[in-house]
């Protein structure tokens, strides 16, 4: 067969092929089949795919409040806007769909759009559907919603208190689930242990934030009563059942498809599913296909995030640092709704709560709470970062408190190398490993001794240098049944068993004998197509370039199961192995076909270099394509019993993944990789900036299928984990305002911040997977945040450290709380610590007009209308009540606000208190201020003021950094205008701030 090359020529050297012909492709870092398309701009991502003519575009109106009753929604103005076809709000969605299922048994509804009450900032309140996206966004600005604001709760520890505001009436308070577990005999272990060492930690909210946002195109065909949805959803496809139920159709009337390419997910695109319901409902309501592409503000505010978790962890410890028992108390914060598959983040690690350690006695209390924050979902690491931050911080604390070397404490507690497969106290079956060897090699090859010398030298110079360690087990291939551990054994008996991890692969051979592969795995950039071409090429004796792989999913046509999708690091251990099994089944039949054609025995047949031939007589061979195609052209020529060789689909589920047992033991994952990390960091004494001096990460992920991709996964996970450790937090104010709505507020590490880690490997194959491989993609998200935290704690000698380790937080630890500002300030605004976005100020201004003139101006709507920048008019409701309509811009957001201002405690012409509130599409504000007027010697007036104002909504999310500066600009405009109106005059020092107050009263929000 003549050699034919498919695909691109490269301008320079091509990527490395096999070093030795005949050696397997698996294990080689071949060039990726995905790259040429992506590098030339020919990728087909969600928003690159054309839509049906007449497709409408959707935009969402979202709640500016963390907790508020929706009093009224007026869509009339929006509906009359150009190009608008429909505006739907919560009641419309309720009429078109059913509630999403809730992850625990409770009489609680979970709508994808606020119905009657908004429970987090960014919750969809209405959807505008128009001819294009610009017009849909125009319409959103014209929807008039009135809210009644309720008190909000954002902290999980506060949410469980009896006095906390309650989000859902169907839960007990805000606690959606409260389960206690006991394994072994923890009480005796604690009673007899010489030491009891504890730690309280709070893991923050963060997200792996893919650069491509969510997207959905949905269509509804009333003739079929069927939906067709294209979305960059990543699985798990258990969600398909949630979707079809919500859309009130059987599963076979919801066709869910994914695009060929996805711009990253890291778990996050699981969270697109509530929008699938909303866009599908919009398509049904309008009778037209509807498309929606999320924007970045929407993504950061309201897509999905990892759970934040409050943990109290206590260890019973022997003198030598051996941990005899653990007592976990976890409060998991799932945000405002318990959306599927939550509370899975909490239970994913249930079998692994003892980490890499041999700890036989275990007590656990797991509470799942709701708070006024965005609902949570899948995110790389999924439960691991939260667990290991507590466990590995505790291990370091044990070392410090018992004056032991932290590495000795780790070593003494590790599961022994001859103990595998090792069943943990809570039921996980650790498949294979040699943790001691990994530590030894990691320390040696990673240069631990040298790092210790560097620490010693740095400390001798008075520098803050520390070393941190982590040992973690990285679970992969989730047991679909682990989530049912949230139910009691009795509830599980009633619900029926849930378990397994069905992976699916199809191999097909066409009439010219070329091989295609399909898997239900939905990659988001990992290179699955490349690895599958290697795996299948090895089975058939072909080259990877001979194999074509398709990883799109179409639930109407493809083989899939509820476990399908790209999550729980299941590709290498489960999906790739299943493709191997499917290829081997066809190869087994082809072997019989070839044996009959070549007049030899089946076990003499080998697949080599594009041919099928005799092992004993290599000249007796036939081309692979000829044998492979025979089933198409001449089924009668096939030996009896072969059937066909055209297509084979394999469903594979590991028998080890059984349902939780009566004692709540659960083998939550099939495979368990091992990671040993250590790092040296230096904290700058002046800036308290943390610099990574060296980061070493030793991995055992079983058999490595593609070394470059494994390193790519490690590096990518490491960079995201570095962000979680040092920079990233989805920050909320106490009132539930979301404060990090841009990528200038939610700081992702750039190339300047990410060092190159030293990556080491050892390979202990898993006995439970077809290829011996284990998952590797999530491990550093589990190990790295706590490793860096341990190093920083070592550097600054801190007992407790809080993520992210930003200098401001370290300053509180190293230098104590910041002292209060001087009593008298003239600066206009000040952002307080701890998420308090109250703007406070006080100051003085001098104008030439006398006090009575200024007073009259303040009470005159016409003057005010002229003075307030962006004012469209001031309406005098009464002598002490004004209503204003203003347009103000803060940084990138310019919007219109309705403001109400009331005057009280009037002491004309000397003093007045003003209370105001403002609300608009971009946010809200409210404030109160006291202004006093006094004469100057030359007949002018000194104006003294104090104020306090709060700001929320979109403007707090994206304008947070800009509020100070923008306020000054706006106030400057006020001042110039007022001074002009008052007959000239120059501001005294700080005088610009005078109008911050006016702005609050009349202009309202920033």
């Amino acid at each position, binding site marked *: 067969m003549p050699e034919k090359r498919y695909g691109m020529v490269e301008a320079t050297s091509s990527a490395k092929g096999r070093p030795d012909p005949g050696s397997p492709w698996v294990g080689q870092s071949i*060039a990726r089949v995905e790259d040429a398309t992506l590098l030339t701009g020919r990728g087909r991502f969600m928003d690159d795919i054309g839509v049906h003519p007449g497709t409408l575009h959707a935009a969402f109106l979202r709640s500016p409040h963390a907790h508020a009753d929706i009093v009224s929604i007026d869509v009339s103005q929006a509906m009359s806007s150009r190009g608008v076809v429909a505006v739907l709000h919560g009641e419309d969605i309720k009429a078109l769909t059913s509630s999403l299922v809730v992850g625990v048994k409770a009489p609680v509804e979970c709508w994808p759009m606020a119905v009657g009450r908004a429970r987090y900032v960014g919750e969809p309140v209405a959807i505008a559907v128009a001819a294009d996206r610009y017009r849909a966004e125009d319409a959103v600005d014209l929807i008039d919603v009135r809210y009644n604001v309720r008190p909000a709760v954002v902290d999980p520890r506060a949410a469980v208190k009896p006095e906390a505001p309650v989000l859902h009436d169907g839960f007990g308070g805000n606690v959606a689930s409260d389960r206690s577990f006991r394994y072994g005999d923890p009480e005796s272990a604690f009673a007899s242990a010489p030491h009891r060492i504890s730690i309280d930690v709070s893991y923050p909210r963060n997200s792996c934030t893919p650069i491509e946002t969510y997207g959905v195109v949905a269509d509804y065909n009333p003739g079929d009563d069927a939906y067709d949805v294209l979305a960059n959803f990543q699985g798990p496809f258990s969600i398909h059942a949630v979707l079809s139920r919500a859309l009130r159709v059987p599963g076979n009337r919801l066709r869910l498809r994914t695009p060929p390419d996805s711009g990253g997910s890291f778990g996050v695109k699981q969270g697109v599913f509530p929008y699938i319901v909303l866009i599908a409902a919009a398509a049904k309501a309008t009778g037209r296909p509807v498309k929606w592409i999320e924007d970045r503000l929407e993504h950061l505010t309201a897509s999905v995030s990892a759970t934040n978790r409050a943990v109290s962890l206590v260890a019973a410890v022997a003198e030598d640092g051996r941990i005899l028992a653990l007592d976990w108390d976890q409060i998991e914060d799932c945000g405002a709704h318990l959306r599927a598959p939550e509370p899975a983040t909490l239970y994913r690690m249930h079998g692994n709560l003892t980490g890499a350690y041999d700890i036989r006695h275990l007590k656990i209390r797991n509470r799942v709470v709701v708070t006024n924050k965005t609902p949570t979902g899948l995110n790389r690491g999924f439960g691991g970062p939260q667990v290991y931050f507590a466990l590995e911080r505790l291990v370091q604390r044990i070392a410090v408190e018992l004056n032991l070397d932290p590495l000795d404490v780790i070593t003494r507690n590790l599961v022994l190398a001859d103990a595998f497969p090792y069943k943990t106290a809570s039921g996980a079956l650790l498949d294979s490993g040699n943790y001691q060897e990994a530590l030894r090699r990691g320390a040696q090859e990673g240069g631990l001794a040298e790092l210790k010398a560097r620490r010693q030298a740095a400390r001798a110079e008075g520098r803050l240098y520390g070393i941190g360690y982590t040992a973690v087990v990285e679970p992969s291939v989730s047991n679909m049944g682990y989530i049912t551990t949230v139910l009691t054994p009795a509830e599980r008996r009633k619900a029926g068993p849930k378990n397994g991890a069905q992976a699916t692969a199809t191999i097909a051979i066409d009439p010219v004998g070329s091989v295609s592969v399909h898997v239900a795995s939905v990659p988001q*950039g990992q290179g699955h197509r490349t690895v599958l071409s290697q795996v299948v090429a090895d089975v058939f004796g072909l080259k990877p370039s001979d194999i074509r792989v398709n990883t799109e999913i179409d639930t109407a046509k493809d083989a899939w199961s509820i476990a399908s999708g790209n999550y729980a690091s299941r590709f290498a251990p489960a999906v790739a192995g299943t493709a191997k099994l499917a290829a081997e089944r066809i190869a087994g039949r082809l072997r019989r076909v070839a044996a009959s054609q070549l007049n030899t025995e089946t076990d003499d047949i080998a697949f080599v270099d594009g041919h099928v031939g005799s092992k004993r007589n290599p000249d007796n061979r036939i081309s692979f394509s000829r044998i492979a195609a025979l089933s198409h052209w001449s089924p009668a020529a096939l030996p009896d019993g072969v059937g066909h060789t055209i297509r084979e689909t394999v469903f594979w589920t590991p028998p080890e993944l059984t349902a939780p047992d009566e004692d709540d033991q659960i083998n939550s994952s099939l495979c368990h990789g091992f990671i040993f990390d250590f790092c040296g960091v230096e904290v700058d004494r002046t800036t308290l900036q943390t610099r990574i001096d060296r980061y070493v990460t030793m991995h055992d992920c079983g058999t490595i299928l593609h070394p470059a991709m494994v*390193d790519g996964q490690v590096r990518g996970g490491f960079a995201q984990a570095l962000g979680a450790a040092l920079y990233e937090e989805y920050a909320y104010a106490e009132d539930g305002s979301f404060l990090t709505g841009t990528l200038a507020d939610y700081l992702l590490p750039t*190339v300047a911040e990410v060092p190159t880690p030293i990556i080491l490997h050892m390979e202990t194959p898993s006995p439970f997977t077809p290829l011996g491989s284990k998952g590797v993609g999530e491990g550093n998200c589990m190990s790295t945040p706590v490793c860096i935290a341990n190093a920083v704690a070592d550097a600054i000698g801190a007992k407790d450290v809080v993520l992210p380790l930003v200098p401001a937080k370290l300053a509180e630890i190293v230098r104590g709380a910041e002292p209060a500002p001087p009593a008298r300030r003239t600066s206009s605004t000040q952002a307080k610590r701890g998420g308090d976005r109250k703007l406070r100020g006080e100051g003085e201004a001098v104008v030439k007009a006398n006090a009575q003139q200024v007073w009259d101006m303040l009470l005159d709507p016409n003057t005010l209308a002229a003075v307030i920048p962006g004012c469209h008019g001031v309406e005098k409701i009464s002598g002490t009540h004004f209503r204003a309509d203003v347009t103000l811009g803060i940084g990138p957001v310019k919007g219109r606000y309705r403001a109400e201002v009331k005057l009280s405690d009037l002491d004309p012409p000397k003093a007045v208190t003003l209370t105001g509130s403002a609300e608009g599409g971009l946010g809200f504000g409210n404030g109160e201020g006291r202004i006093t007027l006094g004469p100057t010697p030359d007949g002018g007036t000194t104006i003294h003021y104090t104020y306090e104002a709060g700001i929320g909504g979109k403007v707090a999310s994206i304008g947070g950094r800009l509020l100070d500066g923008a306020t000054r600009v706006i106030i400057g405009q006020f001042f110039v205008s007022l001074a002009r109106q008052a007959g000239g005059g120059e501001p005294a020092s700080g005088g610009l701030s005078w109008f911050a107050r006016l702005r609050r009263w009349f202009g309202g929000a920033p």
Partner: protein
Amino acid sequence: MSRLPADQHHAVRLMLNGKPCSGDAEPRMLLTDFLRHEIGATGTHVGCEHGVCGACTVEIDGKLARACLTLAVQVDGCAVRTVEGLAPAPDRLGLLQAAFKRNHALQCGFCTAGILMSLDHFLREVPKPSEQEVRDLLTGHLCRCTGYTPILRAAMEAAAELAGEPAKEKSDA
């Protein structure tokens, strides 16, 4: 500068990757939307629409720009280069693109177009850059998949090749 009525469509004519092309745009239409949905050049990606992530970086009249912070009507009469213009032929990769492929400098490939545009421009301006200079340039781009190391490596390899040094055989990740 001419004023354009907000409620009208305006013809935008430009040279896109060396070829004349045109489309209609309202004054408020972003260049990203114009390129992607009006012209059909979807290689330029939208990541943040506020100028931080760098995915939409293109070259306008020889200067780098964020297409998400540019209005379509601003490029009327301009020469615009996008990722679709980087390869020397439809079935060939350019030198920089090949270096990316060799070094596994992309995973999902979503941010890649912008990074390629910045590097392509930079390597023409600074033929023999130091690693620090390349690092500085790349701080204008966010990538969530690769951890940046392979991107830096690919850029340095491409720079060396452009400077006439022989191509490296292959580096594994």
